[in-house]
């Protein structure tokens, strides 16, 4: 376990040094703050939506685009990049198992992402508090859940990035494949699903088929988790209808995200240990 921690500490130090931590935190904070101040303006105060709920809806939509992208950017060259730079050769001559290298890197990268999310989005809450908005307990719980699930979504994409990184021959390919995956999971999948639903007109597609299709995409799991999990948010996001037909409990959704992390991570570990360098 010591080896894992050593590698984690080194990854975090490197991320701080090459300003990954700073860049990700600033990016998320800047967007969260601008959404806080600009995003709540059009809704005004007369629609009955509290500012925190508005922020949760807009921030989670932002997260779906941004967090997977940041996660893939950090993770896509974790293995293939170190191989190309030649540092992996030396590392693997040390008494560490390859899975330890992978888990160590994973913990380090996840810590970086968690830090950026907590502080970036935390800035939004701090700004709300500073401007004197009131906050109830439910809203705050929803916000904390949103941050937690965002980190979990990041974990999914870090694991996916590692898998790609363990499979491909060079860094360029890894980057290309990761961008492709990002487009597919974040944009194309939902559009295709929407098209399918429209074409089907509710004839053949049952609720369970829809559930399965939503569970097959981690970003949809995340969306369901945040936009339907809390009554207020759900009503405001316009997801109440979907929430009614997709009958998945929070527990199942979290478990699904955990599986989405674990399976690519195990697959990455297997491909990495078979790899020769």
């Amino acid at each position, binding site marked *: 376990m*010591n*080896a894992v921690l*050593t590698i984690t500490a*080194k990854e975090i*130090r*490197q991320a701080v*040094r*090459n300003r990954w931590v700073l860049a990700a935190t600033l990016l998320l904070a800047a967007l969260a703050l601008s959404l806080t101040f600009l995003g709540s303006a059009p809704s005004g105060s007369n629609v009955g939506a509290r500012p925190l709920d508005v922020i949760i809806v807009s921030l989670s939509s932002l997260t779906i685009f941004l967090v997977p992208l940041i996660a893939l950017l950090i993770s896509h060259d974790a293995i293939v990049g170190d191989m190309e*730079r*030649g*540092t992996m*050769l*030396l*590392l*693997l*001559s*040390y*008494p*560490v*198992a390859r899975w330890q290298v992978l888990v160590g890197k994973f913990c380090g990268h996840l810590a970086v992402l968690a830090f950026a999310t907590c502080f970036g989005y935390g800035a939004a809450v701090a700004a709300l508090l500073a401007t004197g908005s009131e906050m109830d307990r439910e809203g705050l719980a929803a916000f904390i859940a949103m941050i937690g699930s965002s980190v979990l979504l990041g974990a999914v994409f870090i694991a996916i990035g590692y898998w790609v990184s363990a499979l491909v021959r060079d860094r360029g390919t890894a980057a290309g494949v990761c961008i492709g995956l990002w487009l597919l999971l974040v944009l194309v999948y939902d559009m295709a699903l929407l098209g399918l639903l429209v074409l089907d007109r509710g004839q053949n597609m049952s609720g369970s088929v829809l559930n399965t299709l939503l569970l097959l995409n981690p970003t949809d799991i995340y969306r369901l988790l945040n936009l339907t999990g809390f009554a207020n948010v759900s009503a405001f996001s316009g997801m109440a209808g979907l929430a009614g037909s997709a009958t998945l409990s929070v527990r199942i959704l979290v478990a699904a995200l955990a599986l989405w992390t674990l399976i690519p991570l195990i697959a990455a570990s297997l491909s990495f*240990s078979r790899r*020769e*360098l």
Partner: protein
Amino acid sequence: MTSTVRIAEVGKWYGRIDAVSGASFELGQGEMVALIGHNGAGKTTLMKLMLGLIHPTHGSIRVLGENPAAGEFSARRRLGYLPENVSFDATLTGRETQRFYARLKQEPIAKAEQLLDVVGLGAAADRRVGIYSKGMRQRLGLAQALIGRPQLLLLDEPTTGLDPELRQTFYDAIQRLAAEGTTVLLCSHALTELEERAGRVIIMNRGVKVADGSLDELRRLAQLPTRIRLKISDLAPGEVPAWLPTSAPCRRLNGHVIEIDAPPEQKIDLLRRLTAAGTPVEDLDVMSPSLDELYAHFLRSAERPR
């Protein structure tokens, strides 16, 4: 003699290319072995096989009592490796890098940091590796390989980029380790450097081991002539000394200097004749075949049957 590395009939194929085929040897405790051969001869592949970074297509490997191909790695605590063209994470400092590797080997951090002074990086220890020169990176590579008194050192081209003074310190350090029982396997192109130092030489050609033995054994096997160079003052142009037997070819290098290729067993006899003839010799050089020549010889004889 206990063996640290045992390699038996090992072959490694990349697709249809044989990187190594049918290599067998053992390395004993405290041995200092030079592994030589040109690029692509399979030297680096052998080292990677010993580290378990790649798996042999056939044959078996034991390193410090473990089978590296099966993923056993606890023996790597007692192993130091310096890869060819070593590279480090550019954002960390030399000291941080050294600490990181010491932690992975579970060795005392302070001792590992002292190694930075040994290789002459003490002053640059807190600078980032990214701005290190090639020579400095190489020194850091040596420092990490020496962490924790390894029982086996695998050094791939260890002296490239080192200045002569540091080369000397480096060889002194590893010779001390070898005297204490560390097995050292050195890959190098700098054959003259290895000549006086390596107790044993293994020559590889196209993945096949073509020679293995001490330098004297290889000289005996190769039967290469010893070169005797004489400076004779009153030698007429075109004249060949009368005492010279026909079996020893001789060349004239310039007006006064002739060079004789003497078969090893005739060497002493030739010198005796020379003194008996009373030739006015001004200067005399006797050169045993160097590692360079032996290497070239074994490569030629390995190529011939093909």
